[in-house]
């Protein structure tokens, strides 16, 4: 590995973590769209800052662009507060306006500035190692490395100081307010950190990848864990993993680094979405199917409990009486049998004492609807387990 390669991977990893941490809270607050809005609407701030300073890494530019990011949030909330449009509409109104303002500014001054929209949106991390910070003639390393290192340090410091406040304000803003934790201040703090991170990262990796780094790792790990700390740690690790694997993949295929990383992130999300143990698509689908069979089982048992008449309980006639497909009827019969809820004698099906007890409890659940513990009943009878 060359020095430049190591530096690129370091920068990418720093950006990944710096984005993942605020990203977790954006996802939990259902504000993923806001990061997209910020990443676009900082453009006019960047352009104006660049006119003044002619340096993409200057603190003044970062400050101005960050302010534009926070301004986006303020405008969105202001429009939303009028009650005339919903939040997503408000976002859709604000950021294209600000973004196009930036595009116009660039177009009008194309001769004076080395800045184009593509570079802002896509970035080019391969060039990051060439923009170096010289201090007293000494080479201190790439500017982006320092910038992202600084931003990440700030984020981690704030997060460890205000972890508890951020958690309670995100989970229950009402309680946070009543306890005096100023959820609005925390909200704007989070927005400012997100803006600073976006601004600091866009030069190296582009605005699109910033959004991917903020949202995708958090959204993936959210499907896998029930613990906020783990969510923060594993989102960061996932971001680093996608950065490094994406980098080498892009290297091998000789293609855009940012694009490849974003694709890797997308693929990872797709896999997690399908296969996550509890909240994944397949497991949800399986659960739904189980529930359908459970309901069918209950209907079947109720039928048995309701009919003394042996004719009604003859296995040959049951199918037409309940009017089920052969397949479903067999599945339900098998399930009931496996759970020792029925016994079959001379083709006559009757409930066992266990089956009767289960049916009675289920009926009382359905009729008075007071007992919120159907899950408990199911567990007591080991449906689908024995």
């Amino acid at each position, binding site marked *: 590995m060359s020095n430049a390669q190591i530096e690129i991977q370091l920068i990418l990893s720093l950006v990944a973590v710096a984005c993942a941490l605020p990203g977790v809270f954006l996802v939990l607050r259902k504000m993923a769209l806001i990061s997209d809005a910020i990443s676009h609407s900082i453009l006019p701030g960047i352009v104006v800052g660049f006119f003044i300073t002619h340096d993409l890494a200057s603190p003044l530019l970062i400050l101005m662009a960050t302010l534009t990011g926070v301004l986006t949030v303020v405008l969105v909330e202001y429009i939303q507060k009028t009650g005339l449009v919903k939040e997503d509409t408000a976002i859709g109104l604000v950021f294209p306006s600000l973004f196009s303002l930036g595009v116009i500014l660039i177009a009008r001054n194309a001769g004076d500035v080395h800045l184009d929209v593509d570079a802002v949106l896509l970035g080019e991390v391969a060039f990051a190692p060439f923009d170096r910070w010289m201090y007293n003639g000494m080479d201190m390393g790439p500017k982006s490395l320092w910038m992202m290192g600084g931003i990440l340090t700030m984020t981690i410091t704030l997060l460890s100081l205000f972890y508890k406040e951020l958690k309670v304000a995100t989970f229950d803003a009402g309680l946070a307010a009543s306890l005096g934790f100023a959820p609005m201040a925390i909200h704007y703090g989070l927005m400012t950190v997100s803006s600073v991170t976006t601004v600091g990262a866009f030069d190296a990796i582009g605005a699109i990848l910033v959004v991917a780094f903020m949202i995708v790792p958090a959204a993936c790990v959210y499907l896998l864990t029930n613990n906020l700390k*783990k969510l923060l740690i594993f989102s960061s690790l996932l971001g680093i993993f996608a950065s490094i694997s994406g980098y080498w993949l892009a290297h091998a295929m000789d293609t855009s680094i940012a694009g490849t990383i974003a694709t890797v992130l997308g693929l990872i999300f797709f896999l997690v979405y399908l296969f996550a143990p509890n909240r994944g698509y397949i497991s949800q689908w399986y659960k739904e199917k189980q529930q359908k069979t459970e309901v069918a089982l209950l209907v079947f048992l109720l039928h048995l409990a309701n009919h003394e008449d042996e004719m009604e309980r003859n296995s040959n006639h049951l199918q037409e009486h309940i009017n089920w497909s052969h397949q479903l009827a067999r599945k339900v019969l098998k399930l009931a049998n496996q759970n020792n809820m029925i016994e079959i004698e001379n083709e006559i099906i009757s409930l066992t004492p266990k089956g009767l007890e289960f049916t009675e409890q289920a009926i009382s659940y359905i009729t008075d609807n007071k007992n919120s513990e159907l899950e408990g009943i199911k567990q007591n009878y080991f449906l689908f387990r024995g």
Partner: protein
Amino acid sequence: MEQKIAISIDDLTVAYNYKPVLWDIDLQIPEGVLMAIVGPNGAGKSTLLKSVLDIIKPLAGSVTVYGKPYKKQRHLVAYVPQKGSVDWDFPTTALDVVMMGTYGALGWIKRPGQAQKKQALEALEKVGMLPFQNRQISQLSGGQQQRIFLARALVQNAAIYFMDEPFQGVDATTEKAIIQILKELRKAGKTVIVVHHDLQTVPEYFDWVTFLNVKKIATGPVAQIFNDDNLTKTYGINYKTSIVE
């Protein structure tokens, strides 16, 4: 004997998007009552609680807690929000949610430690949820979630408790358990204010009641003012036949 006033609300008007939902409310809540706030959906019950607790800024009027503004008296007040107001898929456990009740006493930046954990465990025990302490909160039933919220308020160890529909979606057993705890709080001299929907149980559970529908209709002892007249004024339909003894 002159009773001390726990909460005093004067000329309170609250609006969302300039549409008033609470209009010129005057309300004195005496110390030590177990009070129900009743009124139809959208009457502004939750809004009233939120404006007392400084969660929303009123358009006009003022609220005092034992004679001082709420901001100075936070430590005296605990709050149970309406259950639907939070995201139960949030990645956290029952114990952790109850611990949040200790954050107020901790103040900014300081982290909860063993002492806070002990308080939280005691509160979980009190509401019968100790075995569920490490459950992820989305895997609790509606009644269990409500008990967790109650435990979180108990941990705040306050003088005044505000609860927004604590009986929503709970079964008869949980309802009995919760009301038992509320009655114990009152016995300990605390003031408990509950937004309540089941009119049948008002006389049995509460000793004080406030009728609210945008305006305050009436407030006072259940024995004196919980009658058809006030119910009709509040709900707009004749209650003579609806409430059966």
